[in-house]
């Protein structure tokens, strides 16, 4: 393992790669796309030196398929992309959800829809991360606002995927991906890693999709004596297709429940100046950087304003948002989209606080002064 230097000047995309290596990534399949390509390039450089595999696939769909195949063969596997590629990943992301194959998908967001703004930031894929693939499916999506976050959240993405047998989406954005900043990294021995739970029973009695007490069935790897079947069709506990309504119901509910029941373990966030706040801000990703500044500028003016910065968007921190709504009069949600998360915040405030969306979709970041002006406007 290449030692991570404790303090580095490094891009978010680079920190993501360092995090993946510490987490034990052994397989990366990708396809070139701005602004995520540095992740693939660094993986191509590093993985062969670490006993891992890098492959540039013929398209984004193939990359996602190869990642799932690799994970089934036992490797911690990952891909990275941006908006248009993330759209193409959706088909096999759903497959990974349905078949409970751990994997990590990094989306360094750029402006959309369609080809949109290849080199400019956006947070337009937050709802796609939740609902991009069809059907009721479980997903975990993490966000990052700093280069250090990009490292930590990549490690966490692998850990969560292995723990819950789910695909985990890490949403960076062009700013976090490309910003070069000083970051201090923990040494690998300070980091806890999670590995998938393997079956302990003999192959004959192994059911790869058994509804266990934890809702997370142990996972065997291909080629290790457990000859099981994997299909994207609705399947029974043995992994074979079923049309039995009871078995279908049990499967889909369990898949979703395994995230729902562990919400408290999964959800994490940061709080800034919230103790006595009258005005709340809810911001994530690079927008949280500007928002932190705006909070301090507001405080300098004597406005009691605080920030809730989620580190996990999905599952959504519903309880925390509801609590915040009970405390403050307004929750301002700055984001580089037309209010996708503002809508989600509104759904969870139960009318206790007014939710104000502050959006930019022109490829420009949201500056602290814009947020401060919105705070002043709300104060009146």
């Amino acid at each position, binding site marked *: 393992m290449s030692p991570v230097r404790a303090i580095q000047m490094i891009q978010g995309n680079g920190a993501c790669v360092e995090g993946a290596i510490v987490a034990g990534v052994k*397989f990366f399949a990708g396809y070139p796309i701005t602004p995520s390509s540095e992740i693939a390039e660094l993986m191509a450089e590093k993985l062969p*030196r670490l006993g891992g595999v890098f492959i540039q*696939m013929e398209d984004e769909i193939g990359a996602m*398929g190869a990642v799932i195949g690799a994970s089934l063969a036992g490797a911690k596997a990952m891909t990275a992309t941006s908006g248009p590629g993330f759209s193409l990943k959706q088909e096999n992301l759903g497959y990974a959800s349905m078949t409970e194959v751990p994997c990590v998908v990094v989306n360094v967001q750029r402006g959309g829809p369609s080809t949109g703004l290849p080199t400019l930031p956006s947070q337009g894929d937050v709802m796609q991360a939740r609902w991009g693939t069809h059907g009721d499916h479980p997903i975990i999506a993490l966000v990052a606002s700093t280069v250090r976050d990009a490292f930590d959240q990549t490690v966490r993405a692998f850990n969560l995927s292995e723990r819950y047998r789910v695909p985990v989406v890490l949403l960076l954005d062009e700013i976090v991906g490309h910003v070069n900043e000083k970051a201090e990294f923990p040494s690998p021995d300070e980091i806890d890693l999670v590995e998938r739970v393997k079956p302990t029973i003999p192959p004959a009695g192994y059911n790869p999709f058994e509804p266990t007490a934890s809702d997370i069935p142990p996972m065997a790897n291909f080629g290790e004596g457990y000859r099981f079947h994997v299909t994207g069709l609705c399947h029974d506990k043995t992994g074979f297709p079923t049309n039995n309504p009871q078995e279908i119901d049990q499967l889909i509910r369990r898949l979703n429940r395994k995230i729902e029941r562990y919400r408290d373990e999964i959800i994490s966030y940061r709080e800034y100046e919230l103790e006595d706040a009258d005005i709340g801000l809810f911001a994530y990703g690079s927008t949280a950087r500007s928002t932190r500044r705006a909070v301090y500028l507001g405080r300098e003016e004597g406005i009691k304003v605080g920030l809730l910065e989620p580190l996990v968007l999905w599952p959504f921190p519903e309880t925390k948002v509801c609590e915040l709504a009970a405390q403050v009069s307004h929750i301002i949600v700055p984001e580089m989209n037309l209010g996708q998360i503002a809508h989600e915040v509104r759904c969870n405030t139960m009318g206790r606080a007014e939710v104000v969306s502050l959006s930019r979709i022109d490829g420009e970041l949201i500056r602290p002064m814009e947020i401060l002006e919105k705070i002043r406007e709300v104060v009146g």
Partner: protein
Amino acid sequence: MIPYEEYLRLDKFPHIWCTGCGCGIVLKAMLRAIHRLELKKDEVVMVSGIGCSSRTPGYVDFNTLHTTHGRAIAFATGVKLVKPELHVIVVTGDGDGTAIGGNHLIHAARRNIDLTVVLYNNHIYGMTGGQSSPTTPWDGYSTTTPHGNIEQPFNICELAEASGASFVARSTAYHAIQLTKLIERAIEKRGFSLVEVLTPCPTYFGRKNRLGSAIEMLKWQKDNSIPVSVSKKLGPEELREKVVVGVLTDREKPEYTEEYAKLVERIKIKEET
């Protein structure tokens, strides 16, 4: 005597294939090939996409992976790269493998990764009810070419060869013994190999094109197939309507997982010195 039962998940029978379908014949040929090569069941991974042929892995006692439509080769690539010691066999069809999955097929052949693709070509989408595929003949009938097909079909073997495959062969469901030998050679070959098998679909292709019963369709395969050696003496006009069976390509080329291992070795030596 081949102990087929050893390789089958008998509790998953009866299978879903129609009476007269060629899928079962290909399945048995694959099992014979695997048995003759003495492959361990734990070391075989069978990967498929979506369609009639792609239901095959469900019935066999290997590591089996039924993926999304057209993507079997991509998934198989991931499995093979992580565990190159496994025998990875991809089961696909004309629609799955050359329409929606065409890009993965040509690029896996170009990379020359050691996968064995057994492509069941029944000239139609059977699972979805008889729509035209990339191998539906010109003027052929299907539910989406009710007035006759105005598209030209793919020659899948030529496509695989041109894309860089190490081993390419064609056979039919009628030629079950030849088919077994070809699959055996395809599995043994280090590199990307593809065996195209013409399989009758009496339910849709046969009915839509008035080709008669399943038996008559098999008989057509017998009467219209010619070995590669004979085909070389014939002109394009004489080859029209003929099915050339046998080994079409068998060549030595660098194999991807071996090249990757060499690359890793090169880096290691460079870093040590």
